[in-house]
């Protein structure tokens, strides 16, 4: 057992922290208030190698690993959870499946520019009537001649308004259930694709998501990612990795809550003394700190197992379930510690409170994570 980080991992963490503190944090409140996609920060993420952290250098990535990705994600999300999820989607939900399931031609065309930050990707699985229940999706793919014809609607597609390519899940044979799901790499400039307006959201307002309407969109057969009917496998294995990214995002939000609370408690006085001297405040930060450490260890464990090529579905689910819970509890307590100020947008904790909520919902709700974990426990 060894919890030490390699030099490269420490360096990725340090670079991310420096960038997050100096360039991201000063803009986080404004990005949130304006619902602004932070284009310039995304460009910087690309320059720093953070849009393809675990993508090998030969494909244009930083050539690091999932542990380094987690460390960087935590730092970026500590400053701005919106910027964090933009990064997470591109790494986990787009680069990762192309690296794992893509052909060399697909990697050349998409993976390299995605990892370099010259393009941005999105992942389209959810639909108006199908989120957690992936096999219920209604977007159809029919093979007509030597082209696939795709029609349907996708929902809540993070990075959708800003993406160049979509990892697109469709149902090509509804009778087969989840074995009828097929995945494509679909450019966003295809004919027949229209985007809805950016969604209006409770939190992560700098990350834009939207509906996508596919009306007889035609894709060549080489747009297929993986095999016909193999889409469920692509989606599930991708989400196992994606959950590690969201766990790290939640961890970053939780840490922001802790650090902001500690700073505030060390200057704010009530009853003639700093609130840091009140045991009830001490308890809140103590619980936050202990739980954040536990969440980080669960997340790093899942990441290390992914890096070793081990099965990590349960571990990713545990990391996401626990970290998202910790983030929401930390956010609730942080607002409480700030009192009335915490309810005002002048202070950052109300943003953390709003941002934290999504981590319990996307890339598999907490309820879905529990089903995944229980299936692992109860199998014989």
């Amino acid at each position, binding site marked *: 057992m*060894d919890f030490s980080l390699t030099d490269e991992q420490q360096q990725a963490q340090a670079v991310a922290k420096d960038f997050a503190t100096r360039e991201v944090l000063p803009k986080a409140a404004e990005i949130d208030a304006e619902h602004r996609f932070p284009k310039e920060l995304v460009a910087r993420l690309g320059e720093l190698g953070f849009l393809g952290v675990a993508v090998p250098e030969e494909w244009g990535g930083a050539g690091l690993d999932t542990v380094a990705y987690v460390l960087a994600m935590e730092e970026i999300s500590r400053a701005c959870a919106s910027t964090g999820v933009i990064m997470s989607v591109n790494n986990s939900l787009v680069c990762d499946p192309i690296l794992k399931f893509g052909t060399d031609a697909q990697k050349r065309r998409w993976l390299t520019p995605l990892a370099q930050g010259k393009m941005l990707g999105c992942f389209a699985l959810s639909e108006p009537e199908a989120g957690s229940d992936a096999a219920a999706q209604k977007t159809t793919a029919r093979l007509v001649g030597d082209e696939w014809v795709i029609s349907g609607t996708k929902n809540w597609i993070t990075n959708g308004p800003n993406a160049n390519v979509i990892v697109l899940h469709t149902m090509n044979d509804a009778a087969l259930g989840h074995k009828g799901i097929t995945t494509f790499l679909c450019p966003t400039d295809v004919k027949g694709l229209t985007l809805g307006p950016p969604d209006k959201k409770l939190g992560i307002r700098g990350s834009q998501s939207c509906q996508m309407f596919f009306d007889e969109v035609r894709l060549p057969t080489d747009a297929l990612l993986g095999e016909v009917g193999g889409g469920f496998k692509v989606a599930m294995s991708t989400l196992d990795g994606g959950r590690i990214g969201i766990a790290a995002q939640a961890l970053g939000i939780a840490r922001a809550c802790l650090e902001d609370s500690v700073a505030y408690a060390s200057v704010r006085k009530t009853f003639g003394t700093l609130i840091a001297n009140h045991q009830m405040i001490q308890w809140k930060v103590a619980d936050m700190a202990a739980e954040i450490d536990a969440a980080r260890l669960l997340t790093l464990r899942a990441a290390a197992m992914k890096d070793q090529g081990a099965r990590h579905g349960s571990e990713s689910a545990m990391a996401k379930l*626990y970290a998202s819970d910790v983030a929401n509890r930390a956010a609730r307590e942080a607002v409480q510690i700030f009192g009335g100020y915490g309810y005002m947008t002048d202070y950052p904790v109300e943003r953390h409170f709003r941002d934290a909520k999504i981590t319990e919902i996307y890339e598999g709700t907490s309820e879905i994570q529990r089903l995944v974990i229980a299936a692992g426990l109860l199998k014989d």
Partner: protein
Amino acid sequence: MTMRFEPTEEQTLIQKTARDVATRLLAPRAAERDRSERFPVEELSELARLGLLGIALPASLGGAEAGTVAFALSMIELARADASVAVAVSVTHMAAELITRWGTDAQRQRHVPRLVGGEYLCGSFALSEPQAGSDAGALTTTATRTARGWRLDGAKQWITSGSHAGLFVVWARTAPLGAGTRGLSAFLVERGTPGLSAGRPEEKLGLRGSSTVPLVLDGVEVGEDALLARPGDGFQIAMTALDSGRIGIAAQAVGIATAALEATTSYVKARVQFGVPLAQHQATRATLADLATARDAARLLVLFAAWKKQSGLQFSGAAARAKLVASETASRVCDAAIQLHGGYGYTRDFPVERYLRDARVTRIYEGTSEIQRIVIARELLRPR
């Protein structure tokens, strides 16, 4: 080398040794020991024989020198079978460690091999008093200079293994009460020293196979060589020992939680309600998932604190975090385990009621959860 979450070969071997002896020797009679409140004399001797009392101690003193991670893994296995045996092991290991760290060569050579080798059967840590638990500065037991050493007078409370320990680490005041924690010193007192007597074992909610006794020190005469380190070092010795002890107790809590989780997992597969096993009900699955996640989180905190300690890093905060989360988690897991067992869980026919009773103390001894939170907060909240 990147992070590795799986045990090394040596750690695996020790874990397996502990698991085997726990399954073979401890588990079968754990319920009986709980009922009869029988101290595990033969069991501790067997653990000593297998080297499980000295896992992180130097080989030159009879230990296995395998590090604190191996110690924690072994503690989890022992506590999974019987938390009462595990606490005796944890305290013995803590006593041996503090003598190794603070003792003279002569003290080390005399006491550590006897602690880890089973000659003392087990060790005791005599800090708490009737009026002073978490607040060590308020201890009133005194140590007075004599011609050939020291005389100890006072009363100690809640001394784990006190009925059977061959060696006691006793804290006493070498300076007046006004000196607070700076007036404390630690002494090594062997069983049978005249004036040292153990009172009637306490009747407890749980951990009933472990003895908890009051001690009376009535003119206990010890030599100069009984003093550990210098007069006045006692508080620091106690605090550093408790940092380590907390890793042991946190591991104990994880072991109990693991036992409760495993018992519950098999129960819900077998028990049928509404025509299907309980395991098929979503509410059961959700509960089990939360418990397993919390147990894993606690386990990682324990192993992380252990790794920090064996790597020579500052680990006091990590140990406090591990103890806080692990003990609170164990209580929660055991409570939910009883709930999932329903009426059966409330009876002694199933082990989960014992687990709940055993788990409860981990939130109290070696620093209550309340003290852990203050330790953690103190690191974070240095008013500026």
